[in-house]
């Protein structure tokens, strides 16, 4: 190599590390990464105690990589490099045809599924009111055939079959209905949740079990609320170039409905839809305003039965279809609700219970056992 080339190499390397050193030093820190949906590490405060416990250095390393200049650009570049190698996925998310992002499902051992099923069974046997169980199959089951051949993707149908075979009460075969309508957009492309159309189909499928006559679709009034929804699969994949999802609702906010959230024990007035959430990254919180230990909807139709839903976040976009069929609808989230469900059913005069979980949450949520306590 000539002297000139050596100098170029020296300057190239030095400039590369120096530029990012300075950029990281001077670019203001971000507190939150909307794309990753988490708080970023900020400059850890120094103390000898944190130094010697090893906390300081590990936090400092997270700080350096979390606050790295143009972080999202680098993450997206890595995603592109993975795809360029023909892997078809990045960080466990596959980029499939039609820009659909799919996270394959990984089932726990059968004994674990059975254990969880037994919890719901015990709950149903001691609830003293009819309990319906609905497990929601998600995109990796419904659109599993567009994953690359041989990609590890466990069957959600098998999980549902196993759980339903143990459960003594009414169950809802959402998978069959979804398969019939698989051509429609039942799930967001960039998020793990179902769309309003998916939720509407579930509402129709559940009519018999929950004892109402469902709308055949003639009452639907579609309204697009956002064209810029980038969901969780989008965030974890790094495929930041895919087209965002469209988010729509099929029901307007009904008159005479009161919604109350009990985030901190006391009721706070709320609503079915939260337009302000559409301005944030996590747009799914548009429905009911996001997770809460307890939400109660009062429809003012006192002669109708009341319903309790043991929920995960899928219920949020499902609830808008229910007000015309029930007097009160209670949503309890076992992740945050810490009182006895049995007591709640008795005290609130609940007529029926719906336990509705996505297969994924049903298999992984460690709070499921709180149902029987």
């Amino acid at each position: 190599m000539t002297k000139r080339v050596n100098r170029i190499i020296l300057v190239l390397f030095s400039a590369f590390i120096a530029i990012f050193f300075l950029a990281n030093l001077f670019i203001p820190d971000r507190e939150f990464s909307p794309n990753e949906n988490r708080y970023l590490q900020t400059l850890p405060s120094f103390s000898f105690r944190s130094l010697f416990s090893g906390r300081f250095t590990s936090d400092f390393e997270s700080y350096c990589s979390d606050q790295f200049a143009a972080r999202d650009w680098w993450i997206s570049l890595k995603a592109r490099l993975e795809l360029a190698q023909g892997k078809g996925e990045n960080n466990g998310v596959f980029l499939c045809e039609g820009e659909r992002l799919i996270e394959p499902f990984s089932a726990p051992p059968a004994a674990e599924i059975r254990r969880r099923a037994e919890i719901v069974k015990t709950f149903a046997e001691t609830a003293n009111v009819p309990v319906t169980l609905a497990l929601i199959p998600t995109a990796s089951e419904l659109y599993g055939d567009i994953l690359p051949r041989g990609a590890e993707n466990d069957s959600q149908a098998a999980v549902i079959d196993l759980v339903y075979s143990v459960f003594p009460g009414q169950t809802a075969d959402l998978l069959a209905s979804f398969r019939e309508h698989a051509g429609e957009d039942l799930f967001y492309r960039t998020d793990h949740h179902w769309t309003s159309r998916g939720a509407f189909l579930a509402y129709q499928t559940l009519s018999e079990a929950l004892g109402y006559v469902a709308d055949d679709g003639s009452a639907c009034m579609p309204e697009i609320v956002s064209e810029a929804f980038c969901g969780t699969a989008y965030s974890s994949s790094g495929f930041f170039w895919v087209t965002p999802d469209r988010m729509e609702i099929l029901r307007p906010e009904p008159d005479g409905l009161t919604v109350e959230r009990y985030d901190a024990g006391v009721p706070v007035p709320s609503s079915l839809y939260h337009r302000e959430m559409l301005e944030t990254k996590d747009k799914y919180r548009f429905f009911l305003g996001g997770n809460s230990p307890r939400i109660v909807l009062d429809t003012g139709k006192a002669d109708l039965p009341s319903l309790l839903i043991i929920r995960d976040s899928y219920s949020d976009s499902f609830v808008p279809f229910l007000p015309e069929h029930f007097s009160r609808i209670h949503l309890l989230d076992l992740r945050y609700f810490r009182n006895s469900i049995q007591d709640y059913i008795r005290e609130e005069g609940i007529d029926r219970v719906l336990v509705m979980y996505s297969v994924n949450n049903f298999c992984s949520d460690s709070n499921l056992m709180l149902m029987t306590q």
Partner: protein
Amino acid sequence: MVFSSIVFLFLYLPVVLGVYYIAPVRYRNLWLFLVNLVFYGWGEPVYILLMLFSICVNYFNGRWIARVREENKKKAKAVLALNTAINLGLLLFFKYFDLIAETVSRIPGVSVPTLGLTLPIGISFYTFQTMSYPIDVYRGDAKVQKNFIRFGMFVALFPQLIAGPIVRYKDISDQLGERMGSTEQFARGVERFTVGLAKKVLIANNIGALWDACSSASSLTVAGAWLGALAFSLQLYFDFSGYSDMAIGLGRMLGFEFRENFNYPYISRSVTEFWRRWHISLGTWFRDYLYIPLGGNRRGLPRQLLNILIVWALTGLWHGANWTFLLWGLYYAAFLLLEKVLLLKPLEKVPVLGHIYTLLVAVSGWMIFQLDSLKELWRYWKAMYGFGGAGLINESDLFLGRSYLPVLLVAAIAATPLLKNLYSRISPRIRAVATPVLIALVLVASTAYLVDATYNPFLYFRF
């Protein structure tokens, strides 16, 4: 701290190099001495004291030995024995105490509690490196080092502190004074560092995911087991040799020249050759400081075979505090002995057979190295050699094979000297453009992977 991390590349390194080259030449060693301690103490600050203790003991004993070795050989020998005992004692205590305690506790009626100490980073590497100094002084192979800063800098030199190469004092003693460095040397350092970074971040980490996927598969087919074993063999090579490349490169940027540590081990035609090409600095160390003092091959064949057995039992255990590592060392001793008395001549006559045999031994051997128990090892070996009962191949193997084909091919080719030879045949004019462009591309791509990764441990980090 590891080299392939954001904090090293974009904070530690710019600061270290910046001050190093701005400061007057006579302060460079002091600066390196200080930043070495920061580098070392990053993971476990308390162990800086251990490092300082180790430096002091070897420094003063080195001087002591130098003072008495002329007139009182016996006394010098006693000091050397004491010094070696302290070094090995520290290694034994910090690395092997729990293993010994657990093993002894299996005897009925005996119970020794384990301590659960964090392993001081690189202790296996720097203990060997430091120990070599008083021995070299005793033997008259090296002059005594009277400058404490220079000696301390040698022991804790960050490029090779945590994963080698193991630098013998006599190889580097004349570089410990004032180093001027040159643009030429710095540029060669950048090239070498970049090669190592690519090996580690772009190949080893990438292919490591394939090993994880294969080894955790619910049903292990023959093809799946081989895919996994090959992936791990390549991962380990690119991880470790990449680290050595980075160390050599960083050394050059600071004006040091270290010896090579790897020389395309997977092209070997015998196990004997493999170990002359894999982790060369460790093999050399054991040869110089154990095998030859034991008598080497000068005391007849039976004694030589015993010596090989001893050296390889210890080489195995050096790699980790688990009896599987002892087994791994003895496994190699067996093949080396077999070659010594029987196979070496016939293997030389049929090179193709030699290649296949060596790869089979090495790849199967890595499974002893990597799997934690004999039970797992047995399961894996059975699967590899067709007794696993899960069939030849399944959809999942095909998918993984297809997904990782490009990186597997690149890795397989890069494990041979082919690319290097081809690159050196390109006309210098083209290389003058290609080299900086390739360096820039590797730096950008590696940065993308490093920013993306929150989990990036070195395989040899804890050894």
